[in-house]
């Protein structure tokens, strides 16, 4: 840092005002972590309200030689909002303006708007924002953009990137720029697409233009119980092969079903090896046929129970069960480690078998919720963080899960991001040349390394020049 911490705090205070700066020891400690397991160091927390304030904060941080790290609600799990070395933490929760353009099915949204609040706000116009992470009651749109968040309903509607039309952001130079627009296919390179999922490493997002969808007039929700995981997996493939892409196709395994039932009391089939929560949404005349096809496919694949949600209340109960996994796990053990990898959906049974084998061998309890339709795995290890042996086993199991996912043709993260957690695993899916290309892209946006440094790309990614490897031993 250039100059003292006091000078930095004073300058930040002059930009955002005294009520929008947190520099006390407790605040710096509290803001030093996200919902995952990594902890970092915060120099000062600022809570700006406008893009101009963010721009001034970035310029001031640069002049003090300190990096900036953007953060929304802090529900991230990969350490993306955790500063690895002391940084200015830009908390966007006060940037929560929504400007709805109902005619165009679009809205300009501040990064601090909570995901569910957006859909609640647009509900009266029959519109909603499709990405629905399990944390949607707490997570912010800015965080969704940073991590290209998904959720159960991204099977049919795609992840956050499919719903962002434009991104306003502050560059490393402290300029406010807009990539994209309300008109489709803006000319030139698609910088908007690159900003989504860039985890705050290319700029600080200050506003986004989201695409809203008309709410489906009819929804059918089914809970399908199987004696074998294989039957559930075959149902997923069978439904899609029959030409139906349901709105959601979620799997829960036996340990999770039991934990959730204990917690939510939704009358779940606790004897099932796996259940599928399937939902079809669309025109009133179409949903029954699609629901019937799913029920029939499930029965053909050995389902012993097909439960159709009779009304909105029962549908909500079933979804509550699906989205209550974390609360349920808290009843079992004080800590959990939630994983996020993606595999081709056809590899589900084989990879799940391997996950059970890993857990058994390491004496760990694993519970699975799976976005089965798109092959997104979320194994959760329940453990006691005060037991160092358990922590070591959980970490080792996590690495193994990454390995088997990649061996199955998958990748590191489907919706939680790379952050700090998986940064040093990037070489497992990308060659040095691939990583170098990503590092060059980052450098084009942020040549001085002020934007959320140390995230996403491992140190030394930028190690090639003109396609020719630098000779071994060269000092770079």
């Amino acid at each position: 840092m250039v100059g003292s911490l006091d000078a930095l705090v004073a300058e930040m205070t002059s930009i955002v005002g005294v009520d929008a700066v947190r520099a006390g020891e407790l605040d710096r400690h509290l803001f030093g972590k996200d919902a995952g397991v990594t902890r970092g160091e915060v120099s000062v927390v600022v809570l700006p309200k406008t893009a101009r304030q963010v721009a001034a904060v970035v310029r001031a941080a640069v002049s003090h030689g300190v990096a900036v790290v953007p953060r929304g609600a802090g529900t991230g799990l990969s350490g993306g909002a955790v500063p690895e070395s002391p940084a200015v933490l830009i908390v966007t929760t006060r940037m929560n303006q929504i400007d709805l353009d109902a005619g165009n099915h679009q809205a300009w949204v501040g990064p601090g708007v909570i995901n569910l609040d957006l859909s609640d706000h647009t509900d009266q116009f029959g519109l909603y924002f499709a990405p629905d992470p399990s944390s949607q009651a707490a997570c912010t749109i800015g965080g969704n953009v940073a991590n290209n968040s998904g959720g159960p309903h991204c099977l049919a509607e795609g992840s956050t990137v499919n719903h962002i039309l434009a991104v306003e952001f502050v560059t490393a130079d402290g300029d406010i720029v807009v990539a994209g627009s309300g008109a489709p296919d803006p000319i030139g390179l698609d910088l908007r697409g690159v900003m989504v999922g860039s985890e705050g490493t290319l700029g600080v997002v200050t506003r986004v233009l989201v695409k809203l969808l008309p709410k489906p007039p009819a929804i059918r929700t089914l809970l399908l119980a199987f004696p074998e995981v294989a039957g559930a997996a075959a149902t997923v493939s069978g439904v899609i092969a029959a030409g139906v892409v349901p709105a959601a196709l979620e799997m829960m395994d036996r340990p999770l079903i039991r934990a959730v039932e204990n917690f939510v009391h939704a009358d779940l089939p606790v004897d099932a090896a796996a259940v599928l929560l399937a939902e079809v949404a669309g025109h009133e005349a179409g949903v029954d046929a699609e629901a019937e096809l799913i029920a029939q496919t499930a029965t053909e694949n050995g389902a012993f129970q097909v439960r159709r949600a009779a009304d909105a209340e029962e549908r909500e109960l079933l979804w509550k069960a699906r989205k209550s996994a974390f609360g349920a796990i808290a009843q079992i053990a004080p800590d959990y480690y939630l994983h996020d990898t993606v595999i081709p959906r056809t590899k589900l049974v084989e990879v799940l078998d391997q996950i059970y084998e890993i857990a058994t061998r390491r004496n760990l309890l694993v519970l699975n919720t799976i976005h089965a339709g798109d092959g997104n795995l979320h194994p959760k290890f329940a453990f006691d963080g005060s037991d160092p042996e358990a922590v070591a086993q959980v970490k080792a199991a996590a690495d193994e899960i990454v390995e088997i996912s990649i061996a199955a043709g998958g990748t590191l993260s489907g919706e939680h991001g790379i952050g700090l957690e998986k940064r040093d695993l990037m070489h497992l899916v990308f060659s040095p040349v691939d990583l170098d290309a990503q590092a060059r892209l980052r450098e084009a946006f942020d040549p001085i390394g002020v934007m959320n440094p140390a995230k996403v790309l491992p140190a030394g990614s930028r190690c090639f020049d003109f396609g020719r490897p630098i000779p071994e031993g060269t000092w770079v």
Partner: protein
Amino acid sequence: MTGLRSTLGKLFGGSKIEIDGAPSAELVVAPDSADQIARLLDFASEHRLTVLPWGAGVHQGFGGRIEPDVIVSSSNLAGAVEWNPDDLTVVVGSGITLGGLDEVIGARRQSAVLPEADLSATIGGVVAAGVSGWRRLRYGPTRDRVLQGQFVTGDGRMVTGGARVVKNVTGYDIPRLLTGSFGSLGIITSVCLKLWPEPEAAATVTADDPERAAAVTYRPQAVLETGDGVSVFLAGTSAEVEAQATALAGEVAEGFVWPEPPIGTCAVRMRVSPVDVSPLVAQIGTGPFVAAHGVGEILAGIESDEIEPLREWAEVRGGTLVVERAPDDVYEAIDPWGASPSTLDLQRKVKAAFDPLGVLVPGRLPGGI
């Protein structure tokens, strides 16, 4: 240049190929591997040769004109296909045509939902141009389908971005950046595309009013207006197609009856916010057009003196007018893209990150990038 020709000849066996409609170049090559392209681009960067990637030439009308030293055809990159129907993904070489892909994946009634108009276009060309089919109202634009891209950068590095899975946030979304880059960042050698199952039934129904059509249907595949009127493109289960066709109360044709691409003195592509589609249609003269309601894209065949007023109308409202084709004298006098985007400086830096010596299609993108 003679020395370079002979060196390139040695690299590529001296096989000369001819391409109809391509500009003249010192050398036209059709490499059969990414590795060959890498060696070529490494060489091109070293010798500052201008390189133009070429698929079927369908989208070469876009942007600044290129005077290439070397044209790289993707015709020998058409073979590789790895289709995973149960995963709804396919990996293809960039030289495969839309028709060729349909032949493969049509066997299980799957579709990559790409442009319908010209099935001779290559996948590489469609991705590079970032053009989408009419069904983007329901399925989103082409860039929503590009899961992974393999390409060779201007300085000859073979790079892979993305992954062969339908959901991913592992590093930067380079496939999306490639989509619509017009070859300015690299030569695309293969892509992995997300597929959709074709619905059970489809119909095309005429309608009087696009707003009413939207009100009585739920998320149709497309709502297109031409000089002949409005058509609604429906798909789904037989029951829902029938119910919505009845609600529309128009003339029903089975399947999708796509409009002919509009042909006029100049071919333009206008993009505006969805609510501006009808007002913009009212601005177009007597030429043919196809307007995508709900999307905001309008293709039109117009007279050259209509370009400026229509462009101004669109740009004032945050839209664009791109001239895709015009008589030479008209094309030379205008900017094919119109006003440059505000992120031009950043775009220039991104281009340089992938093509540091600027050998790939220099001047093709907005702002002369």
